[in-house]
């Protein structure tokens, strides 16, 4: 099965082609706020490198977050457009899950994926053996989040480029587990039943807007 996967939840955008779980080509960029401008060129690059045509693709995979709200949507909408244009299914997978899935087998479990969430918070999610999620992705205070995770998941291996800065006790570092990456998405999506696709972005945080609670006028109340 030939996969095209896209991941744009963090500052690094990545695109990979995979044959089943075997990575065939990967391209990335780290230009600030430029996922929308850079994605298409990355696609053309990996296809050229692999010598594949877009029509040979069997399915699309995309990282569903958590991460930058806008960044996520840029990747997801793009993947949806491609899926529609090629008439192939798109399958969504968690971006923190992709970090855990991108580690070599010898890295132990549980694995706790960490990602900078800005606003003095981190996104985190733990995974037990074989990648089974232990609870959902959450946003935690940057100052205290790690301590609470270490307590909840004794002996865990922490993943993510921010691990050392947060003082994580045991950190595994690698290119494709340091940040969410399309390589990890490919591992997840290769074997996933389309029915188990994550369909909505994992925003974790709400929009920050507050309702106004205006009393409706008498007329409107009656009409409604």
């Amino acid at each position, binding site marked *: 099965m030939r996969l095209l996967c896209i991941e744009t939840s963090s500052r690094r955008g990545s695109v990979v082609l995979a044959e089943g779980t075997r990575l065939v080509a990967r391209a990335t960029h780290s230009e600030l706020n430029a996922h*929308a401008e850079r994605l298409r060129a990355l696609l053309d690059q990996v296809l050229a490198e692999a010598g594949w045509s*877009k029509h040979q693709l069997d399915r699309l995979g995309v990282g569903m977050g958590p991460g930058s709200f806008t960044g996520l*949507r840029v990747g997801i909408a793009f993947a949806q*457009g491609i899926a529609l244009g090629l008439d192939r299914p798109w399958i969504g997978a968690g971006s923190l899950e992709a970090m855990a899935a991108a580690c070599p087998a010898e890295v132990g479990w549980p694995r706790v994926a960490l990602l900078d969430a800005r606003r003095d918070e981190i996104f985190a999610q733990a995974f037990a053996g074989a990648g089974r999620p232990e609870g959902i992705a959450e946003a935690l205070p940057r100052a205290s989040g790690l301590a609470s995770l270490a307590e909840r998941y004794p002996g865990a291996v922490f993943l993510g480029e921010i691990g050392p800065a947060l003082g994580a006790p045991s950190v595994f570092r690698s290119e494709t587990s340091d940040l969410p990456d399309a390589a990890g998405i490919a591992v997840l999506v290769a074997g996933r039943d389309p029915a188990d696709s994550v369909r909505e*972005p994992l925003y974790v945080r709400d*929009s*920050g807007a*507050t309702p106004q609670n*205006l009393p*409706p006028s008498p007329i409107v109340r009656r009409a409604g």
Partner: protein
Amino acid sequence: MLVLGLETSCDETGAAIVDDTGRVLADVVQSQVVHTEFGGIVPELASRDHLKNGGPVLHQALALANVSLADIDGIAVTCRPGLSGALLVGVQLARGLAWASEKPVVGVDHLVGHLLAVFLSYPDLAPADPPKLPFVALLASGGHTALYRVDGFELSAVRELGATRDDAAGEAFDKVAKALGLGYPGGPVIDRLAKEGNPDAIPLARPMSGKHTLEFSFSGIKTSVARWVEAHGRPGDDQTLRDVCASFQRRVVDTLVKKLVLAARQERVETVVIAGGVAANRELRERAHAAATKAGLRLVVPPFRACTDNAAMIAFAGLTRLRRGEDDSDALSVSPKTALATVTRKGSGRRAG
């Protein structure tokens, strides 16, 4: 030639299929309701909703038009002006689609879309007689209010003659509705209530009625309504509420109509057009018609559904460039600002006129 249009600039998700004569084969608009409780549009919620509905709306448009993607010759997508995060959803969908199906995609200025909406024809409506070029158009929507001279179907053939210095007309409707506790959007509710109100009952400021300027200002009348509410409280009975709505609407419509006719005289055109969400207003349509007739002008008004945000007008506005073989695949960026040159500086305050 068939064009697929996509619109996600504000709070409606739209997809449409339009042919090169402006005939609308399908026009799907999903209006977001998530903003109602916030009394205005929350950009993050708008973006979330566009992403959720973009794919389904697109599928629905293709299905309704009974065409497949293979039948489409090009894609047109709103890329400005609007909420950046919202625009990005439509632009990325369009980009992905264009790349995968190897079709050209062009970015469309939403305001040009509104101005050309008058050329659309719908299979279920009596065929409209489109306006002859050149014409003067009043565009009054939630985010914009301006007069334009339109000499052709392209950005370079559209010239702004004057615009609002502060609030847009639709924005004034929305803010007044909010002050009266009528919810969002305010235009349709005020329109409905004003019908049975007395427009002379409540003394309100006149929105910049200066005779010789083509610029507008609606913040004065908005404040005037807010002051009235402060002094009298929210209308306690239905008739007072109707009177406030009628008095507000009458003044706004008066100004819009006067300036439209003035602009047409200055530009020596024979045809005038009204466009944008506020053009759905009954009183505006009636009074513009009467004033145009009196001035010997022909008024052309788009059907209701073409006035508020929709993707059919975007498809039509993209047509000219697609027909010429242009393609923005490599340069499609979003912007909160229109690409039309403007002559009115926002916030430049009240001038003698």
